[in-house]
């Protein structure tokens, strides 16, 4: 009996001090992949969840190193591949290969990873707040296109034609979020996590209070407000593309960083596109694709792609919410 009473006393003490049920939490923020990444983790053991977070950041760095086209990090990275244009097959790293293979397998032409030459033109003009001439755009566009690179699935090589240059900005962060999430979920001490990479978020597990995750979607024309709140559950990812994060203006005209491969001009069919999927890579890919496509075409893609749901703010500011999100998205008042 004494043993029973002592045990009860200990449990009682633990409960009253909140130690027994209290989850540990840990958060870290780092600048990687040209954005700010915050990982918040809860779990049973402080050291273990810190370790899981550190490993997730290592995963981000791994993908960043392989997909950064502006700086050399590894012998088989994107920078090295681009330098090798016009010189035959080139063996690339695993992450880079997986991304390019996924891209080659999808049918859409409105998202093009070979836009490096035209991105560089706009980037240069962005620094001086000028607009490139049609001739400059035409010359750069001639070096772009899905046919400018090919994959050899046996030898894991990529061949770029002369003058071509790949840019994976549209999908690399989504891929990295999935990769980091897979690293975190392998750690058994983790009960829940939120990976926030700016325009890409993935949630793992459920919150300590058992309620769904609540993700606000920024109002594209009023940075102080949100469009609404989306409730998300374990394993869901969300990605947003918009014309309000990276842009410059000339004579009151906004030039955003997302380009239409057909024209070489900044896309103007939407001002914000948000996609929800179980894969952060899929969400990232489709949020950019929907941003480029004409509105009706974008809606048609959403309706015909079972693995995605979307919220699209068109160029007039009208908000489309796909049927699958109507019960989980609450518009801001």
């Amino acid at each position, binding site marked *: *009996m004494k043993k*029973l*009473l002592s045990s*009860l*006393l200990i*449990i*009682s003490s633990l*409960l*009253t*001090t*909140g130690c027994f*049920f209290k989850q540990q939490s840990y958060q*870290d*923020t*780092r*600048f990687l992949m*040209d*954005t*700010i990444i*915050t990982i918040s983790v809860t779990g049973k053991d402080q050291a273990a969840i810190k370790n899981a977070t550190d490993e997730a950041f290592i995963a981000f760095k791994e993908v960043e190193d392989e997909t950064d086209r502006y700086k050399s990090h590894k012998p088989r990275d994107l920078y090295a591949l681009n330098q090798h244009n016009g010189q035959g097959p080139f063996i690339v790293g695993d992450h880079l290969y997986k991304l390019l293979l996924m891209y080659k397998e999808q049918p859409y032409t409105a998202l093009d990873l070979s836009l490096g030459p035209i991105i560089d033109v706009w980037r240069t003009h962005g*620094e001086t707040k000028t607009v490139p001439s049609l001739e400059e755009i035409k010359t750069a566009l001639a070096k772009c296109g899905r046919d400018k690179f090919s994959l050899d699935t046996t030898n894991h090589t990529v061949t770029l034609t002369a003058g071509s240059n790949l840019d994976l900005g549209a999908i690399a962060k989504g891929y990295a979020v999935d990769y980091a999430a897979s690293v975190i979920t392998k750690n058994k001490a983790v009960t829940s996590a*939120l990976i*926030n990479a*700016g*325009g*890409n*978020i993935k*949630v793992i597990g459920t*919150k300590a209070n058992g309620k769904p*995750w*609540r*993700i*606000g*979607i*920024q109002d594209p024309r009023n*940075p*102080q*407000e*949100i469009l609404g*709140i989306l409730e998300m559950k374990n394993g869901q990812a*969300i*990605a*947003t593309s*918009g014309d309000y*994060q*990276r842009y*410059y203006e000339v004579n009151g005209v906004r030039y955003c960083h997302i380009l239409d491969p057909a024209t070489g001009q900044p896309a103007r069919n939407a001002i914000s596109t*948000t996609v929800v999927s179980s894969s952060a890579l899929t969400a990232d890919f489709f949020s950019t694709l929907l941003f480029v496509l004409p509105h009706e075409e974008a809606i048609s893609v959403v309706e015909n792609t079972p693995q995605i749901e979307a919220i699209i703010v068109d160029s007039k500011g009208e908000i489309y919410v796909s049927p699958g999100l109507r019960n989980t998205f609450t518009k801001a008042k």
Partner: protein
Amino acid sequence: MRKNDYLLFVFLLFLTGMGYFLHSHTPTTDAKILIVQHGQNILQKINLQTIKVPTKISIPTEHDHVIVNIDDKGAYVVSSPCRDKLCIHQGKITNPGQTIVCLPEKVLLTLTATGKEGAPDAIIR
């Protein structure tokens, strides 16, 4: 087991239940906290309720300083040595979950709220 043991048992059980109930229902304050970060380092956590008059804070960066104005409602960037000035264009953040990011200067301002029911866990930008 004697009668007193039973009484003690019931009392401890009651204490246990009360302890858990009180712990899980402790009311929390509703303060807005501004977290100021440079790179990976958290420089300051400021309870905006304590800001009685608008205040300027200066964040040293590689190129110069990012100057931020704060008051009891929120914060905004006044000046930054970055080229694009997107952090300034972003205006004032006033809602929990909102952030201001200056990528070139590696400065992050995050507004959070303690105990605020219904506040988003994150805001996608």
